[in-house]
């Protein structure tokens, strides 16, 4: 039973990490890339860390993994927001088919 849950979390985590990195490579625009990276990689990290915690089953690993998950949830959005604001101020162009620019 434990192995099934570990496999589910492991496969979903790797899938989301792969989708986030594929979005970094394939998306047309810096802001679209940042969108894909923030959501996908955070979900992938969460899945893989939960899988490692379930598989190893020790208390210190659970605490460290929980700390990493909470920290990642807090800082991923903050870092992406800071970086996209700095890039917009620096004049990184939007995609040609973007619908609007609220910061202008």
């Amino acid at each position, binding site marked *: 039973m434990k192995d099934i849950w570990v496999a589910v979390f492991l496969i979903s985590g790797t899938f989301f990490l792969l989708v986030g*990195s594929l979005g970094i490579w394939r998306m047309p625009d810096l802001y679209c890339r940042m969108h894909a990276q923030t959501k996908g990689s955070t979900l992938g990290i969460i899945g893989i*860390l939960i899988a490692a915690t379930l598989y190893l089953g020790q208390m210190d690993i659970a605490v460290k993994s929980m700390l990493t998950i909470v920290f990642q949830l807090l800082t991923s959005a903050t870092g992406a927001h800071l970086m996209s604001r700095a*890039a917009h101020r620096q004049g990184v162009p939007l995609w040609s088919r973007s619908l609007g620019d609220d910061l202008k």
Partner: protein
Amino acid sequence: MILLIQVCMGGVGISILFCLARFWCGPSLADRIMAVDTLALNLVALVGLTAMAFGTGTYFSLTLVFSLLGFLGTLCVAKYMDGGSIF
């Protein structure tokens, strides 16, 4: 289970290759920094998978370290790009 862990390591390796490609040909500085940040996240996942493969939690603190360092790098370069003082 060990076969599944190895397949997931391969998947994380492919996503590291995507990040390196974006780092190589990213048009702007922000693209490259974002690619390095994602590389740090992939390293966190790889440390977790390595802990599962070895069956020990000795290196598990590295996840926290890589996560912190990736965020700190992003923060510093964002402040640097804004033209403000970093500290």
